């Protein structure tokens, strides 16, 4: 007998296209159209994986997304991916997969010893055992993780491309089976925009695995014809290989499209996956149903499969998962499968039916001479890692709660099980629809909708092809109508057969002979047996949510698609409570796993977050700048010259400003244009200091508070004309300040006639600072920029380097300085011209580090001090606070806490020994050798070596600092253990009188 389990003919595989692949380093051949699962089964590979906890041998159990066992590590290297369901992997040439959760190999797995001691590993074993001694948990955890781990993720960057898509439609149809196809067609015929989503490469849903007819045509021919029709319609988008992963509020659904997973590797531009967000006016859920396993002894041996899966492998892939089958069922649906299996050449040793009465479905099976045992059960499977060897069958007693009589032993190599069908209500439930239990068919069905959706077909427990077609057509028409397409009507469907699953005899745990302790698995992926659920109930975990967490029932990558109903039914029996009272666990998105790559999309690498570039960015780059991110902006940090260290460059730039002239790109500072007759009044209300009397052509430093009285932001604001101002903000607060102003104008004071708009990007700003700055600018403009013509805090509209611009006489560095503003596209021209014309004046660019040193020397505050916990008074702006007008935050600053004299205040710091640097981020304490915990008197907010003062200085916020000038305290960093004795001094450490900047 050949080792191949491929049928001689049949199946929708392309036998002219053989594909080579390897599993656990062994080379096999499959065909185009195979899944990895069907190709492995065709090659007689039964052992696919080791189970999660007991390391029991496991094989393929299903033919779809519900697969709990047949998971593999797919691909190699950077593309490797764990826990991939072999049942959904389309075979391609060169595919490499390996088994997971085994060591050293799936055949010889060391941890399978767990299985011998399985009675010592009950539910909650880990919780109970490894909690003592507590300190050992870290060690235990490592061993447990190794033993219980599933696959492993790649340890290299993902080389594939992932994208996002967004779409809108009138009707989204989830599922391309008979109901979904009819729904899509009915909706599309009305003119509605339809998106039809199906997870498989080929439409048809369950029909792909069956041998049915729609009208006179074979079902799959009918599917193909509908596919062609839909594809030709401009208002229809068909997304195959796409899973509706999640259903969120406002009828927003997330789809995961596997654009390149079926290819050896997607080419450079084609994404491997696309993550879609779709907003649908109406949704039709046609998600089908999943066959339920039966819970009997050793039902996890490789070769025990869902009956419909065996049928699907035979019909769709031309693969017989075994040669000699026993089928165990509690309903009619298995009989159709048995006929197909028989047609495919399998021997059927027996059909075991727990029901007492023979139904019409039995007849054709009997006619083929296949023995049918009614009122019997398969209570045990014999087999090992090589697969099923046989089954043990017994009759049921009259009550059906025990087995009776003698054991019938029967050889077989595959077992089909059919415990009825569970409608796939995941998306319905995610959409917040309410489920209802139907006792007669033992399942939950959609009951009350919460969003704009409707279910059709098997996901609504409508069995039978004819009914599904009709219901789908009706649902599609209703959805289109609800979306505003009044003429929509159900399209007619060819008359088809309508076999259901008949009467079902629920048997949640198949009885076993007395004194047997056979493992009857409920959740195959998480190794939860009926006994584990029973134990959890005995130990008091009576809520279904608690049972789930304690036993891990329904967890894992399959999220209990095959196990949830069986599990909660056992809980119901144990508690003697009806199933609706036990309830069900929450169906959470996604339906099947979504890779992180698809969620991330293109937001990775240097596009993780946008980069904002100043108009001078290229110049900085050419000049050898090292950039530092400031929010999204890239700012030049320093410009290193050959032979210089970073600090050499920074000190050179600083000294150059203080002795000659330097230029700094201040474009990222926030700039807000303010216009309207009430502008001055508006600014008065926003700033603590007055702006009403600011003359035209002048700018003023302003401080803004939050409503709670803490400082919000600072900056200079210029009056360009009576009713026209330009405000500057810090780089970090540009957005929040604009938002704040817009809020005030729209909500608080709509009566003020003021318009604000961001002009940050319109202006390229350059600080020109240093004793030679006036001379440099005089060479580039005809405007009067003398001390009289443009005094400190003056602003002038000028022509500079041949373009219109503005010159502001302001200084952050503390030197004689100007800020030049020109429209951004002219920025590079003006900057380069200034650089060129100032060569003999010693002009050089400086970066954020030099700026930082100079602002520390001058005691100018930035974000580190404007940290949301400081008041204007804390920072030394108390004197600016107007008492003649109302402003935002005014009420708050009169609260007692704001008036305490020992509030933390801004202070300068000097290193006492002159040699020790003040540690960054240090705490200010009275005595670093004191007892811990010690009082924290304050914290260092800025530190540097001042090349101008030639000493280590810093800024800090320290308790009552203003009255403690000259006091010596300690700056101690608990992180780096650095410690420095510091003397408190005025924050204005360089040119405290400000003579340089006014000169």
């Amino acid at each position, binding site marked *: 007998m050949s080792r191949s389990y491929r049928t001689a003919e049949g199946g929708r595989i392309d036998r002219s296209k053989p594909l080579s692949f390897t599993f656990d380093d062994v080379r096999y051949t499959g065909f185009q159209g195979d899944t990895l699962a069907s190709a492995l089964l065709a090659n007689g590979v039964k052992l696919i994986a080791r189970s999660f906890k007991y390391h029991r041998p496991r094989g393929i159990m299903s033919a779809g997304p519900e697969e709990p066992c047949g998971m593999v590590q797919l691909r190699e290297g950077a593309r490797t991916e764990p826990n991939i369901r072999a049942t959904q992997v389309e075979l391609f040439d060169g595919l490499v997969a390996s088994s997971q959760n085994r060591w050293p190999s799936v055949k010889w797995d060391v941890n399978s010893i767990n299985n011998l001691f399985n009675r010592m590993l009950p539910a909650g074993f880990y919780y109970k055992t490894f909690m003592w001694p507590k300190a050992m948990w870290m060690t235990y955890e490592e061993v447990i993780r190794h033993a219980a781990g599933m696959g492993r993720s790649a340890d290299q960057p993902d080389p594939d491309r992932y994208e996002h898509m967004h779409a*809108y439609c009138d009707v989204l149809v989830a599922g391309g089976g008979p109901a979904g196809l009819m729904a899509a067609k009915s909706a599309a015929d009305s003119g509605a925009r339809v998106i039809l989503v199906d997870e498989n490469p080929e439409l048809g849903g369950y029909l792909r695995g069956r041998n049915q007819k729609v009208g006179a045509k074979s079902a799959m021919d009918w599917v193909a014809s509908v596919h062609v029709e839909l594809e030709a319609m401009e208002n229809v988008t068909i997304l195959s290989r796409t899973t509706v992963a999640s259903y969120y509020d406002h009828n927003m659904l997330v789809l995961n499209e596997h654009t390149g997973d079926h290819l050896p590797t997607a080419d450079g531009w084609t994404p491997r996956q696309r993550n879609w967000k779709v907003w649908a006016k109406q949704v039709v859920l046609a998600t089908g149903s999943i066959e339920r396993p039966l819970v009997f002894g050793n039902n996890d041996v490789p070769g025990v499969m869902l009956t419909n899966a065996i049928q699907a492998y035979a019909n769709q892939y031309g693969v017989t998962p075994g040669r000699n089958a026993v089928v165990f069922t509690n309903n009619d649906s298995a009989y159709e499968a048995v006929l197909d299996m028989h047609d495919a050449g399998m021997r059927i040793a027996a059909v075991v039916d727990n029901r007492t009465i023979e139904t019409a479905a039995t007849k054709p099976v009997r006619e083929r001479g296949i023995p049918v045992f009614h009122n019997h059960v398969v209570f045990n499977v014999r087999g090992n890692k090589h697969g099923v060897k046989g089954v043990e069958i017994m009759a049921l007693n009259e009550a059906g709660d025990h087995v009776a009589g003698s054991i019938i032993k029967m050889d077989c190599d595959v077992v089909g099980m059919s415990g009825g069908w569970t409608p796939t209500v995941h998306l319905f439930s995610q959409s917040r629809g309410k489920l209802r239990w139907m006792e007669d068919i033992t399942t939950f069905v959609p009951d009350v909708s919460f969003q704009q959706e409707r279910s059709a077909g098997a996901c609504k427990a409508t069995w039978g092809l004819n009914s599904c077609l009709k219901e789908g057509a009706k649902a599609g028409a209703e959805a289109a109508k609800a979306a505003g397409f009044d003429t929509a009507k159900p399209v007619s469907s060819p008359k088809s057969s309508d076999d259901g699953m008949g009467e079902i005899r629920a048997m949640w745990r198949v009885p076993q002979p007395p004194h047997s302790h056979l493992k009857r698995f409920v959740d195959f992926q998480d190794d939860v047996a009926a006994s584990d659920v029973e134990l959890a109930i005995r130990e008091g975990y009576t809520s279904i949510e608690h049972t789930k967490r304690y036993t891990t029932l329904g967890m894992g990558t399959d999220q209990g698609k095959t196990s949830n109903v069986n599990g909660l039914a056992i809980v119901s029996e144990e508690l003697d409570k009806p199933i609706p009272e036990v309830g069900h666990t929450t169906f959470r998105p996604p339906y099947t796993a979504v890779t992180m790559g698809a969620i991330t999309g293109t937001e990775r690498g240097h596009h993780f977050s946008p980069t904002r570039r100043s108009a001078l960015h290229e110049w900085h780059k050419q000049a050898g700048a090292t950039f530092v991110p400031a929010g999204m902006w890239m700012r030049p940090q320093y410009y290193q010259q050959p032979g210089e260290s970073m600090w050499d460059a920074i000190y050179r730039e600083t000294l150059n400003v203080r002795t000659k002239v330097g230029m700094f790109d201040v*474009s990222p500072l926030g700039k807000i244009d303010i216009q309207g007759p009430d502008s001055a009044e508006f600014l008065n209300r926003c700033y603590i200091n007055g702006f009403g009397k600011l003359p035209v052509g002048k700018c003023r430093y302003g401080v803004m508070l939050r409503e709670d009285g803490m400082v919000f932001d600072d900056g200079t604001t210029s009056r360009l004309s009576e009713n026209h101002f330009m405000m500057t903000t810090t780089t970090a607060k540009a957005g929040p300040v604009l938002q704040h102003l817009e809020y005030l104008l729209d909500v608080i004071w709509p009566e003020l006639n003021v318009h604000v708009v961001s002009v940050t990007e319109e202006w390229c700003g350059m600080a020109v600072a240093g004793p030679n700055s006036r001379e440099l600018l005089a060479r580039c403009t005809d405007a009067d920029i003398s001390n009289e013509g443009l005094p400190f805090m003056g602003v002038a509209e000028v022509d500079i380097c041949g373009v219109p611009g503005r010159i502001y006489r302001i200084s952050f560095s503390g030197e004689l300085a100007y800020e030049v503003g020109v429209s951004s596209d*002219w920025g590079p021209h003006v900057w380069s011209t200034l650089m060129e014309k100032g060569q003999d004046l010693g002009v050089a660019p400086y970066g954020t580090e030099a700026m930082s040193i100079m602002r520390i020397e001058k005691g100018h505050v930035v974000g580190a001090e404007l940290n949301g916990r400081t008041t204007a008074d804390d920072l030394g702006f108390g004197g600016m606070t107007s008492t003649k007008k109302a402003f935002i935050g005014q009420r708050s600053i009169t609260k007692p806490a704001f008036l305490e004299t020992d509030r933390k205040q801004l202070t300068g710091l000097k290193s006492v020994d002159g040699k020790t640097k003040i540690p960054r981020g240090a705490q200010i304490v009275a005595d670093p050798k004191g007892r811990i915990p010690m009082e924290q008197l304050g914290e260092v907010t800025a530190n540097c070596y001042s090349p101008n003062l030639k000493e280590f200085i810093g800024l800090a916020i320290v308790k009552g600092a203003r009255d403690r000038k000259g006091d010596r305290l300690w700056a101690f960093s608990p992180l780096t253990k650095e410690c420095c004795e510091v003397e408190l001094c005025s924050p204005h450490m360089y040119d405290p009188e400000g003579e340089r900047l006014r000169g």
Partner: protein
Amino acid sequence: MVEMTERVSALAAIYETGTFGNDVDGGPSVTLHERRPLSIVHIAGNSDDQAFAGGVGKACGCALPIEPGTIATAGELSLIWLAPTRWLAVSPDQGPGILEAALRDACGESGAIIDVSHGRTVIRLSGAHARMVMMKGAPLDFHKSSFTPGRAAQSAISQCGTLITCPAEDTFDVYVFRGFGQHMWEWLTDAAGEFGYKVENPVS
């Protein structure tokens, strides 16, 4: 002298014309170019104020569009609705301050007029798959029955605030703050790569 100083685009360092991306049958199906140089003026005011609305209408040659998300046009000038009190006037470069001054003169003391010509980068995409590129970026309904010529909307693409307009079928203009220009160009061309794309010379 002003005329002699050429405006430097935010994309100057990376702009390259030619054919890029996937080598697809039938050639590239997306075309991109920067729209420049442009005059862009931000206009704010109350559309019920006749002095303001009339002034804008006079200066632009078309009435202020009042319906959200719409554009009015007069020749090569577009007046784009941004918010209930805000519009953007866009035209090929008229020279420094010219369009701003025309609007200011026409509106007198009403409303707020500010030149933002240098503050935006505007990228035009066109072609059979331009719509698909836009769908990758923004959560808007770009279907041709929905985002029709004459529509404008604001949304985020790759975390950047954008103004998107549809000047003609299968044609989209993406406006971003100048500082995000290069990032947006990189992002859009990357998204167009799948379809093959052509970069043409900038034109206003």
